[in-house]
């Protein structure tokens, strides 16, 4: 957080006339005065709402709010579902990333488009798409329901599917770029030293991949934890079964319990800060997020 603050502060400091000479050498570093107010407004827009939340938070009632049955239930469900969705994303997403990174031909581009579509698709649309596919009358869901009497929507498994749908592309994109930078030449070198393909993968490629995989996992988990649109559309809002933390926040707000909504929101803010802390080396440096995602 401190480094983020430094970066934000840096923009304002650029206005000081006698800033260190080194920072002002070259056109690239010279502050462009007319841009400063816009940048400052941008910072305000992003930072003030979070500040407002913290200021408005019912700090004294927090222990009581967190211990309430609904909160505990939603927290537990959120953790179970987001962790499950992350595991599924890793199991399916890492091989998928490998195919995208090492595949050749026009179909790879098409596949990448399909895989990354959920990144830009509004989650509520994703939820409807899931419903039409896996719902009791859906494309696949009907067949599943007729065969087993089981339907995904409005179940905890449905929440996991919705969260995976929305979050997995983050993992795929992050890991694919890592696969790309871990070039096949190193595996060849390992082979000439006597390593089988599997050994080369285990001793060379995977270790090189780990930092990116870690970042992808954290990012995917955070996205799954915060998932709202697809979940409420596909899995509904059933306390104890499909009501995750974001859904509960929404429910509390709807029912007029502002304190409860803010309290639960704070929990999610803390989690978000934790994620930021974990990924600080990747994100809180110039060009960081682009490097992580592209």
């Amino acid at each position, binding site marked *: 957080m401190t480094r983020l603050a430094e970066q934000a502060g840096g923009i304002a400091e650029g206005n000081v006339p006698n800033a260190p000479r080194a920072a002002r050498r070259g056109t690239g570093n010279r502050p462009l005065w007319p841009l400063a107010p816009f940048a400052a407004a941008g910072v305000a827009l992003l930072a003030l709402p979070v500040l407002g939340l913290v200021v408005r938070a019912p700090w004294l009632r927090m222990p009581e709010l967190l211990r309430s049955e609904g909160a505990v239930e939603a927290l537990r469900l959120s953790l179970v579902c987001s962790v499950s969705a992350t595991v599924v994303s890793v199991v399916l997403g890492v091989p998928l990333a490998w195919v995208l990174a090492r595949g050749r031909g026009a179909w790879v581009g098409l596949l990448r488009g399909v895989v990354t579509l959920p990144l830009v698709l509004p989650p509520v649309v994703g939820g409807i798409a899931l419903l039409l596919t896996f719902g009791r009358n859906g494309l696949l869901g009907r067949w599943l329901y007729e065969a087993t009497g089981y339907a995904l929507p409005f179940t905890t498994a449905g929440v996991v599917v919705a969260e995976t749908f929305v979050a997995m592309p983050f993992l795929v994109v992050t890991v694919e770029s890592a696969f790309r930078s871990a070039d096949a*030449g*190193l595996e*060849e*070198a*390992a*082979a*000439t*030293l*006597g*390593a*089988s393909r599997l*050994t080369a993968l285990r*001793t*060379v490629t995977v*270790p*090189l991949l780990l930092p990116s995989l870690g970042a992808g996992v954290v990012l995917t988990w955070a996205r799954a934890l915060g998932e709202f649109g697809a979940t409420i559309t596909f899995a509904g809002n059933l306390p104890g079964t499909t009501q995750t933390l974001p859904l509960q926040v929404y429910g509390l707000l709807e029912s007029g319990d502002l304190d409860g909504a803010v309290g639960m929101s704070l929990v999610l803010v803390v989690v978000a800060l934790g994620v930021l802390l974990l990924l600080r080396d990747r994100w809180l440096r110039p060009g960081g997020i682009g490097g992580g995602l592209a």
Partner: protein
Amino acid sequence: MTLQADVEAGRGRFTLSARLTVEDGEVLAVLGPNGAGKSTLVRTLAGLLPLRAGRIALTGSAEGEEHVLDDPDAGVLVPVEQRGVGVVFQDHRLFPHLSVRDNVAYAGRVAGRGRTAARAEATGWLARLGLTDLADRRPAQLSGGQAQRVALARALASDPRLLLLDEPMAALDARTRIDVRAELKRHLAAYDGPVVLVTHDPVDALVLATRILVLEGGRVSQEGRPADVARRPATEYVARLVGLNLYPGTVLDAAARRILLDGGGSLEAAGSDAGDDGSGGVPVLRAGAPVLVAVAPSAVAVHPDRPGAGSPRNVWPATVAGLEQLADRVRVALDGAPAALADITPRALAELGLETGRQVWLSVKATEVVAYPAPAEGPAPGPGRGGPPGR
């Protein structure tokens, strides 16, 4: 071990066709321009690219000891990791997440030795290659020359039966290259198996190799000892690399030793360079025989006017086509019949007042004109222009 390779391989429409034998302790330099098939050759030997046809085998000194690595006809293809072929790649390909020591210990670890044993072994190799101080560094913290040495140590530590070096100097700057080359020569001498060194730098080939094989367009265009290749280039490409004017021609008059050059003009050759090529006293120059004629640029004298009756037997007019500063000389490209490169001192350049387009006369003593039989096979040398400036 002796490497015996009869290689027919390719990617797409490119086909490499080469036959080579490398004995224990020999360093075969494979020299050729970009796209000649050098990398394809290395990849087939390493097992990274299967042969289309042919055979690659390592034979031992013991009776009948032979390890076939690749033989499409027999259905044999030993995978890379079981070949025991050490490779030093052009881009080094060190494992970025491992220290220098662990890079060198990698082969031992993969072979199933414990961490301690493999590291101890690696430490020995590091000492031998003067890398002890760098043992704990990561590859990203190494200079180009250091990385190259680590790559060599890593390949040698795998106890290879055959060592392949793919453009090992290409990633180094000119200054480093000189140091690394001298060191590499020492380390290659200490390795007792066959070595194949791929390069496009003639100096690497001349300094490091015991034998040179020239690849052009996927075919072997010349093979021989470095001294022979340097003195009697078989193709325009080699001539340019070793800095000789080369002219294909036909013997016009064996007695007068006059050779009609394919590209125009004629030259008289006093020495037919029987040399030590084993041809003994057999006259090389028979009338009508196709020959190659080599003339060193330093043997070509440049005159402002037609020289009077002097000893040089070869005198002809030419036009200055270009000037290039070499280390301590100026190389003059000249159009004429034949065209030629001439090396003169900067002082001579100033005194002659040479500039592009200037008419001059050239002379070469017949004793400086070396004629030898044109190779029966391989690509024909380029048209009779003596190599224009190489770069």
